[in-house]
């Protein structure tokens, strides 16, 4: 029977793998000898208690492997009676594996490797310095406040799969189409190609992935219902993100919003030429549909107690709803506007107020630049921005400053407001400043230079020096002296079961940080109900990520410039300024990436 079995094995393909046991091995070996094979060598695979030996023979031009498994304490018969050339291999196996092989024709008795009375031994444990298995996330991913997997979705776009890229972003940030237009992109500042001023344009690639996903639908499915009810107060980015993740994890979520539409600061604060409002609405509704969220607009919550009775947990995402005052004389004159009023009129109510021909904007943040550019589109010829410090300390992003300069906005630095005289035209009295000692936040404090006052005449003034936080006092949560809510490390307020996050806790910050807070609170709430939470970012070492193979070419490529509307067309309307990438440009830009997370 054994001989028939061996003949059956021969008919198979080239690398034959036979198996045998210590008792049958001599039959198999004799059969192989009669087929005129040549002995090659013996390999041993150590498995702690047992051992697997592989005998290699050559027949013609093919190699035949014979596997033998046995325990180390059993005796294995030798094959040197048939193949006498095997005595070298078997002596070594006997020495180094502590096996017992019986019947070797030249048996050196365990002294093949070691000399007779040698005091040292070669049987030492194999230790030594381990080569480093370093793998970091990629600096772009580490810089993102929410750890969006930027290297992975750039790779997926380079492979031609924008829908997979969109879903990769959704694992960590709930509104990719909006982020692709408004995010201040700390990932691009962490990109290693930033040294040559050519970072990968990760934000525009995210926008390309969102533009090419039909109906902005995600691939996530809702888990089974858990029976818990959660209320979210506030429909800004933080609230929408928390509702999305909690809904996917199986809870029943109800979202209360004061106005009639969701979006928060993205709705009233960011102009239409940066973020079209229909895309915002489309994406928020798509998230609500994926997660099964009940949306209750036009409900202003002033008291938490009825909500606490009805729901198992509450999340407060109220945002920063107040604005700072200049505290100078004449602030309430006619013609002096608060930036929130101007932006709300233009962005939400679609009105076009007439601000006159010359406008002065006081402030240096992103909101003031938005106000200035909106003023240009409303018909003002001369728009000037006055800021207390220099360009280096301006909190606005460089992209916005470039856009404003290109559209004809003038900048005046080291100037501060002193008094406003009402009348038509308005008279604004300003004075020069110089930089003094650094204050508590590290920025140098501006000090007025006495005797340097001057006056300008303008048609209207827009003040945009900052936002403040204010919540209804009936809520009963503990607040700081600035008005922000006090939370512990788990985003929980002084009332148990009530959580808070976003701008109302940390002050006015960016969209991505609000999205991160929404995701983290969703995870905390789920864990408080004994769930598993939303998965944390982690590294998978068994995933194969290839480095680009033409490294020399890639080092010299230049970045792909995004097409924009021409200057004349920009001033006339509120259409989107950046036109995004098409397929070729996106592929070229994504293939420029150095793949810092390579693992090959």
């Amino acid at each position: 029977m054994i001989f028939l079995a061996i003949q059956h094995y021969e008919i198979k393909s080239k690398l034959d793998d036979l198996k045998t046991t210590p008792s049958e091995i001599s039959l198999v070996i004799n059969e192989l000898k009669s087929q005129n094979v040549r002995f090659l060598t013996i390999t041993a695979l150590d498995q702690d208690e047992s051992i697997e030996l592989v005998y290699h023979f050559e027949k013609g031009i093919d190699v035949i492997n014979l596997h033998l498994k046995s325990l180390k304490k059993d005796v294995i018969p030798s094959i040197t009676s048939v193949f006498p050339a095997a005595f070298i291999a078997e002596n070594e196996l006997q020495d180094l594996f502590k096996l017992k092989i019986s019947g070797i024709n030249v048996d050196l008795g365990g002294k093949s490797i070691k000399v007779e009375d040698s005091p040292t031994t070669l049987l030492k444990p194999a230790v030594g310095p381990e080569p480093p298995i370093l793998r970091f996330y990629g600096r772009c991913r580490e810089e993102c406040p929410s750890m969006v997997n930027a290297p992975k979705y750039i790779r997926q776009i380079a492979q031609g799969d924008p829908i997979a890229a969109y879903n990769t972003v959704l694992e960590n940030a709930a509104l990719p189409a909006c982020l692709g237009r408004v995010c201040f992109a700390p990932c691009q500042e962490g990109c290693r190609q930033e040294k040559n001023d050519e970072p990968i344009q990760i934000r525009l690639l995210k926008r390309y992935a969102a533009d090419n996903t039909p109906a902005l639908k995600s691939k996530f499915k809702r888990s089974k219902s858990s029976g818990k009810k959660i209320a979210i107060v506030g429909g800004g980015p933080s609230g929408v993100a928390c509702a999305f993740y909690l809904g996917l994890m199986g809870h029943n979520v109800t979202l209360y919003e004061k106005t009639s539409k969701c979006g928060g600061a993205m709705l009233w604060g960011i102009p239409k030429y940066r973020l079209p409002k229909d895309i915002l609405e489309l994406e928020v509704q798509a998230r609500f549909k994926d997660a099964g969220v009940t949306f209750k607009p036009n409900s202003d919550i002033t008291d938490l107690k009825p909500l606490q009775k009805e729901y198992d947990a509450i999340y407060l995402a109220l945002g920063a709803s107040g604005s700072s005052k200049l505290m100078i004389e004449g602030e309430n004159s006619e013609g002096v506007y608060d930036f929130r009023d101007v932006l709300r009129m233009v962005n939400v109510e679609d009105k076009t107020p007439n601000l006159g021909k010359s406008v002065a904007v006081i402030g240096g943040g992103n909101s003031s630049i938005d106000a200035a550019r909106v003023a240009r589109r409303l018909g003002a010829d001369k728009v000037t921005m006055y800021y207390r410090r220099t360009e280096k300390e301006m909190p606005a992003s460089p992209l916005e400053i470039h856009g404003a300069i290109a559209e004809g906005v003038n900048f005046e630095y080291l100037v501060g407001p002193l008094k406003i005289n009402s009348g038509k035209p308005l008279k604004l009295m300003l004075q020069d400043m110089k930089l003094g000692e650094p204050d508590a936040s590290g920025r140098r404090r501006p000090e007025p230079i006495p005797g340097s006052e001057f006056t300008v005449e303008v048609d209207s003034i827009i003040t945009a020096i900052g936002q403040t936080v204010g919540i209804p006092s009936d809520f009963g949560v503990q607040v700081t002296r600035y008005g922000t809510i006090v939370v512990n490390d788990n985003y929980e307020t002084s009332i148990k079961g009530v959580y808070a996050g976003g701008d109302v806790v940390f002050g006015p910050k960016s969209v991505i940080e609000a999205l991160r807070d929404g995701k983290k609170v969703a995870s905390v709430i789920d864990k408080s109900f004994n769930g598993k939470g939303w998965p944390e970012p982690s590294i998978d070492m068994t995933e194969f990520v290839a480095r680009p193979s033409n490294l020399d070419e890639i080092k010299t490529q230049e970045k792909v410039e995004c097409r924009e509307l021409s200057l004349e067309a920009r001033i006339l309307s509120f259409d989107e300024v950046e036109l995004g990438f098409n397929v070729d440009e996106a592929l070229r830009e994504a293939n420029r990436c150095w793949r810092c997370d390579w693992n090959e």
Partner: protein
Amino acid sequence: MKHFVKLTVVGGAIGMSEISNKTKKYSVLPFGPQHPVLPEPVHLKFLVDEEKIVDVLPNLGYVHRGIERGCELNDYKRNIYLTERVCGICNFIHGATYSAGIEKITDTEVPIRAKYLRSIWSELQRLQSHLLWLGLFADAIGFESLFMQIWRDREMVLSLNEKTNGHRIHLETNLIGGARKDIDESLAKVYKEDLSVLRKKVEALTPVFHKDPGIKQKCEGKGILPKSKARFLGAVGPVIRGSGLKEDIRMTGYEAYGQLDFEPIVYNGEDAYSRMLVRFDETLQAFDLIDKALKQMPEGPILNKNTKFPEGSTVVRSEQPRGELFYYLEGNGTNKLDRCKIRTPTAANIPPLVNMLIGYEVPDIPTIVHSIDPCISCTERIVYLKEK
């Protein structure tokens, strides 16, 4: 000094002499590991009956370096550089065989131009190795000026290595999936010029090796390995081709040898003299192969990287200057290998060596030991023990 040794030799020694289950008093002559004639340390215990050799006991293990264990601690891509350090003289072929093994496991296709490049550099290593051996053999016989002259001419190959990639001995131009550097027009011209000068010098030595009566007397009829027993004992390389059998791994057509019309060189003398002639003729054949490959090489890319981690096991063989090289690789889907087993040709040539020495006299030992071209440092990275 006489030692009394009691050996248990079962079933007759390999040399089929008349010792079988008997103990008799013989002198033991230890040979090595340090000896002026030996290039590398190996220990052979000769049982001598007044100048006539009766039996031989080999004992290896003096240069053990633990490379096989090192191949497991390292990334599978850094292992190319570790396996290249197994042997100094034939280092490129070790690296190329390891890369071919990983390419087989991960289903990577090597571009054709890279295959031609690997064949050219393998032949260059073979040329250099045989010239080194010819010099050492001449020195063992006693012909010292020939030794110096051959090694002076061998320097041309080493400077050619330096012009290719910057190092004289370790040509590190292997990558998994192809080659690292290319031979462009100007470098190919340098190759042709230098090799034609070297060829004339080697051809001038043909009458010395083929016809000189001094060399013939020293090695003709010594160390006979009969044709009927050569394959059974496991001989490889020029040892078996000197006994009349046509065995060469290059006939399977790996890398680009299938397109180069390769025919192995066989002599029928069965002694040390015909093995030397096999190696000398292979040196001249290497020049022809390099010329042909440089002419036939097509244009194209030289690198095609692998796209997944190695998983599974495979066996790869290739032809070193000394014989047949054997690699067994096993991977498990991560970036470290499970097992890498290397068997070099000298390990396979030791049983024939033991057989060849029996019946000859003590002054013939250097000639016979040299005739198998021993490279003991290759032999010594034997299996390991993983103790926790």
